[in-house]
């Protein structure tokens, strides 16, 4: 499966990339990293990911709007929201938009890995 990482923080993009690439999640390969929702939509058109990790608070286009755009491109896309907005109402709102999982920041490597595996299996 093909992974796109969307987050405005370089620290978080690199961290997720390392967890996936060095943690050895089988069948998941990184195809792109985006700094905001608009960039994510452009990259998704070109790279056609199956799985996306999605921040919510970002410049230009935020995560909620980006989820809508990405699901219009591919309704079967597996989206894992990774956000500091870790209250229940935000998680529910993201899931209603079509995300399939939610991980609050700060997160441990194991938490992220388990959530990614769950989202991949939800397909």
């Amino acid at each position, binding site marked *: 499966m093909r992974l796109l990482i969307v987050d*405005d*923080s370089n*620290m978080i993009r*690199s961290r997720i990339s390392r967890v996936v690439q060095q943690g050895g999640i089988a069948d998941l390969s990184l195809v792109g990293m985006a700094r905001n929702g608009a960039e994510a939509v452009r990259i998704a058109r070109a790279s056609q990911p199956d799985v996306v990790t999605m921040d919510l608070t970002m410049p230009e286009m935020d995560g909620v709007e980006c989820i809508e755009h990405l699901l219009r491109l591919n309704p079967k896309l597996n989206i894992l929201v990774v956000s*500091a907005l*870790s209250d229940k*109402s935000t998680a529910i709102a993201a899931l209603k938009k079509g995300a399939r999982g939610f991980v609050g920041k*700060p997160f441990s490597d194991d938490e992220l890995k388990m959530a990614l595996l769950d989202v991949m299996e939800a397909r």
Partner: protein
Amino acid sequence: MADNSLHEAELKLFVESVRNYFKTTTHQEPQITSAYLATGDVEGHDFNGVVTFSGSYKGHVTVSMPPQLLRELLLLQKENDLSEGNLLDAVGEIANTLAGNARQGLGAGLDISVPAKLRGHAGLRARVRKHPCVITLRWNHQPALVVVDMERRA
């Protein structure tokens, strides 16, 4: 009386968020060295992340850290790029995380901005409250502080 209780609740909320950030990210809790209401400009550190609140609250939270602390945090996450840009990115992300986590205690009506990242240790000036809340801490022998300058909208 109500105003005083708000100060205490905010302080507890952010103190717990700071503890949780370090505990989850580094497996090492910080030592909270003080929590108080500032009476003047607060002397900060060199790298600062500022998140602005709107909606049910207005104001800002500022995370201020020296470069050595940020380098150690990045190295623990196996990040080798320790450039100034990446240190600023890290302090902005920490401010974003603390502010985002605050919604659990302050309610979904709180909106938070993307973080602004500033270099320079000039005094941090209160913009909303006369006496902003200041939390000072020490992690792995390095000092840091969080300034919570916010108030509930009427």
